[in-house]
């Protein structure tokens, strides 16, 4: 009976067949499991990581981040010059083609850059307001004038959202393009998008580095449930998957068919403190809270030893990270004394927690216990992520934990958000320090890397002193990829190495092991 049942199902179901017989044909297609499916193929209309991973498979950018994740390298722009005042950038375009065979020109590049700035539907307009004009002076030369000098500008061009799109293809119909782009400038073209299920990509033979792309295709498959996604990898039905729950890593490592990769990520989980709420306005109180928290034990418990305690808002491994930054010691007794001295010995805090998020909920319980030992009463208010975001923007919280991943190589993006004193109220903390504010603005304009690094070290030290934002709780090694039957490591973290799969990593692709 078992055999007959087995035969019937194998004969009838292509999926089962594929697993047993046709590995050879499927060898060139990499299947990657992720939580959510894409939402669009128009890069300017999304700010979601899930989309950016696919954008960087399909579209190329003018300037790329290299595989070390610390330097920029030429992409579709073969080379560039910057005027001494830092206002004019002249890019020389490489000889490259879109997947439909038409040449990629400076006209397309200018179009893409102006579109992300001007389109009503662009979610990135504000980031590109720095662009004054972008003109194709000839088919191979793009001249960009900025409204003011900007050190992070080149880094910003590496963002998948500002990828070079075919002007002709987009203008033929924006909505159709967003559904299924007819021309791609990157390593793969979009063959099919089964909404809610998967994105099927096929190698783009016209890609200018097509000889370095060893895969025939990639399928990004949405499997929302963490356990189901892991079972798919264990059963060999997915080659690899991202977002492995911390709690499963140790067990999955024991599976001889799987390889778990842990990479340094730019994710940091921050403890946000509302500087406008009562005693929290005092620097000493914020420092005392930091000392009352045993960060090491939180990180070890929550990440099962995979994460590390972070000591700067610029994550370890990123440009201008200051490794020698001061770390407040864990000292609940001193914390208690400091709170008493600041007149906050019976501090009561409302902690807004993202309900349903395993990591956030665990951190919340641990923080509540630890702060309790220092005499701080913490009330946990669990709300869904969309609501907690709303409460943070409205300042309707005392403390909360949120995480950040870098979008670009340059530290300016995160620095502006957490310390730039702009409309985001410094990561919603309402933090104010004019010295820090001025330094952030000056560092953006400073074009000499050595001087700039020194400025960022100063910012990190200053922020460490009075803004607990700079006391991120943990920096987990975020991208944990159990590996199925193939040697492949995509780098889905959009901050670093957005181009990896187009090159080296696809280069290391090997046939299935089993």
């Amino acid at each position, binding site marked *: 009976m078992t055999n007959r049942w087995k035969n019937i199902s194998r004969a009838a*179901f292509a*999926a089962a067949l594929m697993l047993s017989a046709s590995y050879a044909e499927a060898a060139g297609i990499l299947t990657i499991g992720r939580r959510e499916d894409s939402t669009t193929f128009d890069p300017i209309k999304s700010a979601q990581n899930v989309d950016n991973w696919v954008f960087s498979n399909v579209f190329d950018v003018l300037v790329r981040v290299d595989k070390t994740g610390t330097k920029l390298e030429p992409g579709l722009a073969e080379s560039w010059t910057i005027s001494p005042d830092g206002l004019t950038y002249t890019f020389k375009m490489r000889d490259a083609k879109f997947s439909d065979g038409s040449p990629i020109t400076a006209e397309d590049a200018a179009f893409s850059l102006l579109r992300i700035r001007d389109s009503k539907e662009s979610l990135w307009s504000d980031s590109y307001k720095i662009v004054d004009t972008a003109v194709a002076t000839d088919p191979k030369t793009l001249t960009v004038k900025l409204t003011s000098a900007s050190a992070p500008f080149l880094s910003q061009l590496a963002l998948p959202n500002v990828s070079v799109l075919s002007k002709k293809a987009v203008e033929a119909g924006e*909505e159709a393009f967003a559904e299924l782009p007819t021309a791609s400038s990157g390593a793969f073209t979009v063959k099919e998008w089964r909404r809610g*299920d998967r994105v099927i990509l096929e190698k783009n033979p016209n890609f200018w580095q097509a000889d370095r792309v060893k895969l025939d295709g990639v399928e990004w498959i949405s*499997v929302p*449930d963490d356990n189901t996604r892991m079972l798919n990898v264990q059963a060999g039905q997915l080659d690899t998957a991202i977002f492995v729950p911390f709690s499963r890593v140790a067990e999955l490592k024991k599976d001889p068919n799987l390889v778990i990769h842990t990479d340094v990520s730019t994710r940091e989980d921050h403890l946000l403190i509302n500087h406008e709420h009562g005693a929290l306005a005092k620097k000493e109180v914020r420092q005392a809270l930091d000392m009352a928290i045993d960060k090491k034990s939180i990180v070890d418990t929550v990440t099962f030893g995979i994460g590390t305690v972070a000591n700067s808002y610029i994550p370890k491994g990123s440009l201008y990270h200051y490794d020698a930054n001061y770390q407040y010691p864990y000292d609940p007794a001193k914390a208690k004394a400091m709170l008493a001295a600041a007149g906050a010995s019976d501090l009561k805090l409302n902690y807004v927690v993202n309900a349903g998020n395993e990591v956030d909920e665990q951190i919340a319980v641990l923080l509540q216990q630890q702060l309790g030992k220092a005499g701080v009463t913490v009330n946990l208010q669990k709300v869904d992520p969309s*609501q907690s*975001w709303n409460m943070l923007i409205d300042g309707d919280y005392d403390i909360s934990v949120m995480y950040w991943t870098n979008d670009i190589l340059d530290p300016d993006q995160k620095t502006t958000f957490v310390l730039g004193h702009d409309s985001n109220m410094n990561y919603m903390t309402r933090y104010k320090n004019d010295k820090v504010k001025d330094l952030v603005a000056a560092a953006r304009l400073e074009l000499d890397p050595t001087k700039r690094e020194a400025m960022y070290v100063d910012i990190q030290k200053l922020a460490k002193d009075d803004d607990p934002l700079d006391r991120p709780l943990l920096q987990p090694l975020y991208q944990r990829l159990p590996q199925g039957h193939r040697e492949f490591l995509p780098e889905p973290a959009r901050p670093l190495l957005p181009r990896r799969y187009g090159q080296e990593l696809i280069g290391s692709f090997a046939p299935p092991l089993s």
Partner: protein
Amino acid sequence: MHRYRFVLTRPLQFLPVIFGISVITFILVRLIPGDPARNILGTRATPTAIANIRAQYGLDLPIWQQYLYFLKNLGNGEMGKSILYKIDVLQLVVTRIEPTLALVLSSVILSVLIAVPMAALAARNAGRGPDHAVRIASTFGIGFPPFWLGLMLMILFSVKLDLLPVSGYGATFGDKLAHLILPSLTVALSLSTVLIRSLRAAMIEALKSDVATAARARGMPESIVFWRHVVPNSLVPTINLLAVNIGWLIGGTVVVESVFALPGMGQLLVRAIFSRDYMVVQGVAMVFACATVLVNFMADIVTVAVDPRVKL
């Protein structure tokens, strides 16, 4: 034929029901704290960017005006534009109906295939061993949460035995069928327990009825008495129970779709709620509501057809 007159008049009663549901979902989804524009923009939620998004999607208008636009769109066969996916909601929903419909259909068929023989076995052996066995088994069926049951089935049939796909949907008919086996089994195992209980009770009742006694008096063999007289007479309450459960199932596919990564409307709804994609929540709720109303209508027709005594 007058027994079927309700087929013509009943749909008129649906209009106020659907209208009521549209008002309730429209208001409820806006009452959940959270903001679609802030959510979609994330860390880029500057006041100008938020205002821009709100204007684009009409979220800056008074709520009654937004509702009128929603009705106007419905009249034009549109459901507004999704803030997350940037396309028309109807266009989006249409791509997601099939997996949900297939899941509901296959689950119902499987439930009936499990429930009828089990209930018959129990009813014909009422109070004896097989009856107890069926009743104990069905108690377990109610106790297992679907997400856990689904995972167990996956581990057994997909990982250990390597017979069926773990999750997903597939492209061809056979492929889809293979992908539907485990999720519909998960649903059927809990749905059939409810049916078994109702059906067993009705069958025991019918076995004692005058119809059955009269049939036996005419010398009919017990198995014919059972299948020809008892079963049809015990179906009516179960059909209605099934209809109510299908209504519940249409909304309840959310969990099973997530566990088995079926790209259906349940998953679409969950993501839409989390991102406060109002238009999509409204659209999916409307489709679910219409489907539930339709299923109950069909159950009425079937009840009338099965039992000549019923008048509606």
